């Protein structure tokens, strides 16, 4: 059974909301990604979303853009991201890992080859930002063959027909983008989020995670009341970079302390 499914089954039994941190692989440094993943798991991450840096991250706000640029400048690549996951799996067999990124690095590797390499490395799910369901039929099938979950985005503007189309292809969980804009933007309206998540839950058979605009324990707690999972990225990435700039090597420790605090708020 896919680790994502077993994780959500256990969470449901314990009536807990999943906490899903996002970090960009290779930022602030290539060496820090592996220890940071372990730190996040220790701090209570239920799933880890690992960003695969891309030169043109058109759905991301300034924080993740800069983060991707730094990671690429350090020489990060999709191949190296998979190597980090394989290394992580040597000592962690339970925490699901989801790769999040853009289509072109995957297409450059050849999609079939990527799917096999990702499965072999111990990846559990893949979210390709610019593969909406109408362009992802065959890719979702390829992932399915290796028991990898295709994760899809849903937006405030998604119609019920689209939610249903996503529901047919989605495995693992769906990722609801809680506001109009890019990652790390503005303030989110929890009432609006609750209404839309309710609608999605009626149509989509997998758990619903909410992200974009969740920046601290308090927003996580409020969103956690209506969602199955909260995804938190830009605030963590920014904090880790700040810690790294103050003292390189402290970023994993920062991530652990920061996420532990979010975990406590979420569980309160």
């Amino acid at each position, binding site marked *: 059974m896919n680790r994502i499914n077993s994780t959500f089954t256990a969470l449901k039994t314990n009536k807990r909301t999943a906490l899903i941190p996002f970090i960009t692989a290779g930022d602030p440094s290539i060496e820090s990604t592996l220890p940071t993943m372990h730190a996040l798991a220790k701090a209570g991450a239920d799933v880890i979303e690992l960003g695969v840096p*891309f*030169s*043109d*991250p*058109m*759905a991301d*706000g*300034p924080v993740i*853009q*800069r983060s991707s*640029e730094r990671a*690429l400048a350090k020489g990060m*690549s*999709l*191949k190296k991201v998979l190597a980090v996951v394989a290394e992580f799996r040597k000592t962690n067999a339970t925490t699901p890992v989801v790769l999040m990124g*853009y*289509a*072109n*690095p*995957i*297409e*450059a*590797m050849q999609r079939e080859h990527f799917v096999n390499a990702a499965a072999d490395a111990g990846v559990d799910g893949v979210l390709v*930002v*610019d*593969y*909406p369901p*109408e*362009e992802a039929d065959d890719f979702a099938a390829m992932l399915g063959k290796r028991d990898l979950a295709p994760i*899809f*985005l*849903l*937006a405030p*503007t*998604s*119609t019920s027909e*689209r939610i249903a189309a*996503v529901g047919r292809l989605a495995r693992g969980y769906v990722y609801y*983008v809680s506001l*109009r*804009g*890019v990652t790390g*933007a503005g303030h989110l309206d929890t009432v609006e989020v609750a209404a839309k998540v309710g609608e999605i839950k009626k149509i989509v058979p997998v758990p619903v995670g909410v992200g974009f605009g969740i920046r601290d324990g308090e927003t996580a707690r409020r969103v956690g009341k209506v969602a199955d999972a909260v995804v938190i990225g830009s605030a963590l990435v920014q904090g880790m970079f700040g810690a790294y700039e103050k003292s390189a090597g402290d970023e994993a420790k920062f991530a652990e302390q920061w996420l532990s605090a979010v975990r406590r708020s979420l569980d309160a």
Partner: protein
Amino acid sequence: MNLYDLPDARGHFGQYGGTFVAETLIQALDDLKAHYAKYQHDAEFRREFEYELKHFVGRPSPIYHAKRWSEQLGGAQIYLKREDLNHTGAHKVNNCIGQALLAKRLGKPRVIAETGAGQHGVATATVAARYGLECVVYMGSEDVKRQAQNVYRMKLLGATVVPVESGSKTLKDALNEALRDWVTNVDNTFYIIGTVAGPHPYPMMVRDFQSIIGEECIAQMPEMAGRQPDAVLACVGGGSNAMGIFYPYINHENVRLIGVEAAGEGLDSGKHSASLTKGVPGVLHGNRTYLLQDENGQIIETHSVSAGLDYPGVGPEHAYLKDIGRAEYVGITDDEALKAFHECCRIEGIIPALESSHAIAYATKLAATMSKDKVLLVNLSGRGDKDMHTVSMKSGLSFYCHPECELGRHAAASPNKEQIVQLLKR
């Protein structure tokens, strides 16, 4: 060959094109698709579009026989489609009018655009002023520096120009930033994409608005040359002027279609923008097409003396026309384009845009290998006024600027710099 009827309903040209965007943009694109389908053949919309092209742009643009030059080359006769005579100085305005008329009908009071050299930005700012729309233009901060005159033109026309500091700070990053704006302000904003790239329906819609170029040619060529041309040539960056002139000729099987890419410092120099000649298929900016990328799938920086061709992708329909062999794509270097630029000025009395100079350069090469009864039609997609600075720098000539500016240049090189700066401040 069957009658050409692409893209399909999902925006695919064979394996190219499509809708490769985040879910956050899908609704806006669906909305645009529905409205475009509705107005595309709407008599009132067509009437307004044609009226504007005639009275605001000055269409139809003439076809001109470059007789002296053809005689000197001693081969095929070269004809130029004079898009340089359009209002705003290039073909870009045709598409901007079409999209702005759609924006009005969709009730969107704000338009945004990306621009590289600034031609599409100027055209968008122009139509925004004409229709009373708020206009924001995204432009890479490197391009803002290189194209100061066009930045000023946009500001004169009432647009806000936003310098983009991310990535390589050029056209592709401006496009990313415009997409981010659109996602955020989708309720009141219409995104006017300037080329035949981006997610469906843009490649199709921009092609349709630009195909007025080729349609006019089909009507004008029999009168000018007694027949249709043997080959049609156009420069290709994103590829909108080329699609505009190619499209009506696709079903004219005997007419060769030749797209000319920017070979920069040479196709093997690594410093060029020849996506079709040197790229491999991938996904960027909402469509699958040929891209200049590294082995890890990261988009690489491109080079061309002409900012309008300096783009790592290309419209998906060109990718398809290349693969099926209906169109050929070749490269012209910076030096070859500059040579053609100067010859066009001296021999024909026309100052062409550096972009268009690529197409002209290839036409002169090709003409020399053909007999005198052959006919080449070149899309002279824009005028070169915007390129004065680039050309004068490349030619090692001093470009005139106002006295303070001349002084400023001397000041920078002078040991008495501080003193001169003080003088200037007075």
